[in-house]
């Protein structure tokens, strides 16, 4: 996508202690009766960031978004937008706009008047409204649909009208509630990149709520993984995937093998861990847990190598096992390998060559191996 990669790589205000957050949730709690939807949550979002709130349904991510939009008031705590506490500002006076999951297009208005609705509320002169609406229609490539009513549009077109409507007022922050949830897979993938381009071009702050981890990984600068009203981890997609801070995050994002065990030796940023299956893992570890403490070892399937011969490199961890099941997916093959202890691990291997002579077959004895930095130690 254009030069996007370069811009993205250098965009990391969260790593800069001098950078001021654009949106701050400070000790925000939201209760509905007895139910705590958001639990004493603190979070910073930076200007021009594409920020994703990711979690299962009921984790509080939508409530957080709705508090930002002004539809819910926090039970306690404060929400600061651009240096201003917005808790007492009603939704219709906030400089944020939202794209609704259901799109919430006004069925009795044309595409044009839907997009111009917010501008009319601000009392903008008619000719300026027309100009801005035309600009928005162009932006979402719907020029020829201006006079249609929402029910005369396809799902993808409706989504774009909703987007144009929420962008028309040039909000400081655009909130997107499951923006791509109602689209089919192919359209969803296309639209993901369109949204990213748009955010980049307009220089806006986007906060998106999604339960689709792939969507969050593709689009967001940073992801907040949420569960039970709390943020479990906030980090870039790569950090979330490669260095999950907890069993929950490791398990929630992508596929993972988790081996439980005890730390047997620790030091020099490395530890040795004996899994409950009696398998010794030597791995790098950022924080060094004390020897004897319980820990888990998480490793992604693609980091595991399956081979017929034992690896010769001494720094490599290896275990012998038997092929239990094979799933051929085209681009890769997934092996389920039963280790000596009976534990089954999942390993995926890229099918880089079109034809492989003598592929690994069911019930074959194989070695599963991985390097010292391939996995993560989870302390809990």
């Amino acid at each position, binding site marked *: 996508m254009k030069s996007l990669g370069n811009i993205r790589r250098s965009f990391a205000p969260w790593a800069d202690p001098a950078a001021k957050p654009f949106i701050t949730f400070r000790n925000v709690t939201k209760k509905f009766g007895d139910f705590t939807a958001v639990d004493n949550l603190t979070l910073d979002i930076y200007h021009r960031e594409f920020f994703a709130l990711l979690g299962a349904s009921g984790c509080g991510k939508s409530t957080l978004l709705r508090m930002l939009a002004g539809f819910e008031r926090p039970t306690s705590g404060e929400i600061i937008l651009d240096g201003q506490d917005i808790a007492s500002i009603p939704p219709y006076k*906030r400089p944020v706009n939202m794209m609704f999951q259901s799109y919430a297009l006004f069925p009795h208005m044309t595409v044009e008047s839907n997009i111009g609705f917010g501008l009319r509320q601000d009392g903008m002169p008619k000719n300026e409204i027309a100009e801005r609406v035309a600009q928005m229609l162009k932006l979402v490539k719907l020029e020829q649909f201006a006079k249609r009513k929402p029910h005369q549009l396809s799902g993808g077109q409706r989504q774009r009208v909703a987007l144009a409507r929420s962008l028309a007022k040039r909000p400081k922050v655009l909130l997107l509630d499951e923006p791509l949830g109602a689209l089919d897979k192919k359209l969803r993938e296309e639209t993901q990149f369109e949204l990213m381009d748009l955010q980049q071009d307009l220089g806006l702050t986007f906060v998106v709520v999604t339960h689709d981890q792939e969507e969050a990984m593709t689009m967001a600068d940073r992801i907040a993984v949420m569960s039970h009203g709390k943020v479990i981890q906030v980090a870039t997609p790569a950090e979330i995937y490669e260095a999950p801070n907890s069993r929950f995050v490791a398990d929630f994002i992508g596929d993972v093998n988790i081996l439980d065990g005890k730390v047997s030796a620790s030091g020099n940023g490395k530890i040795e861990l004996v899994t409950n299956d009696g398998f010794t893992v030597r791995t790098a570890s950022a924080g060094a847990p004390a020897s004897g403490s319980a820990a888990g070892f998480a490793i992604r399937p693609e980091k595991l190598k399956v081979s017929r011969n034992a690896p010769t490199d001494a720094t490599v961890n290896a275990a012998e096992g038997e092929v239990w099941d094979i799933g051929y997916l085209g681009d890769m093959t997934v092996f389920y390998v039963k280790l000596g202890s009976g534990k089954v691990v999942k390993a995926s291997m890229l099918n880089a060559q079109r034809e492989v002579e003598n592929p690994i077959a069911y019930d074959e004895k194989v070695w599963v191996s991985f390097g010292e930095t391939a996995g993560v130690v989870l302390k809990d």
Partner: protein
Amino acid sequence: MSKLGSAIFSRLVIIIPYAWLLFFFLVPFLIVFRISLSTTAIAQPPYEPVFALADGLSGIWAKIGEFSFDNFVWLTEDALYLNAYLSSVWIAGVSTLATLLIGYPIAYGMAQAPRSLRPTLLMLVILPFWTSFLIRVYAWIAILKPEGLLNQFLIGTGIIDSPLIILGTNWAIYIGIVYSYLPFMVLPLYSALEKMDNTLIEAAQDLGCPQITAFWKITFPLSLPGVVAGCMLVFIPAVGEFVIPDLLGGSQTLMIGKTLWNEFNANRDWPVSAAVATILLLILVVPIVFFQNAQAKAEEQGR
């Protein structure tokens, strides 16, 4: 066999109610029209001409020649009828508007109520409908009489000194119509408002609309089908209303339903009352067709 069975089944399902309605709903209107063209007679039935098979074709043809529009001419010449029509439409119109103004906040309040409470509220709106219409009108007599409960209350609390004369005036009719037809207004409004997607209101607020503006720009336009249905359900029967003006209105109150009733029962003038009914039907054709279109549209959307 199955196909034949299916064909017979579908035919019967259509034909039986169709035939019933043709015979008991459409044919009677044709008869009304035919009698409106006849003249009064002191006979049984009290009009002429009367067809008989014995007349033969030529005899019937000769009798058709006796048909005339005299009754309709008569209606236009007598100011009583014209006034009755006009005042019926006026009273029905005022009452419909009043019912809408009272019914809308109720329906809106019900649609905003907690979801668990809504079936009960709906039940409470429908419940009075199950009690007799006549009873509900009757109940107002005791309230509106000069020495009735309303006046007792108002005088007792010192708001007024001398009793308000309501019973026997158009005010009593307005109250009676609003009261009796309120559920017919509330129900279609409620079902239109209850369906409303709340996120539309949130979207409007998000785009800068205060709550009241959002109501007028989004909620109200989207509830218009309910408004139309409710108004038609009140207006059309109210124009031809008989019981309410008869029991609550005074002798000087003119409404066409009452006029028709008197013409028929007291004067036994069948041709004139048939003509009155024909004109009333013509007046109501436009709103009825309007109502049917709205119904058909709702039916299409439900499909």
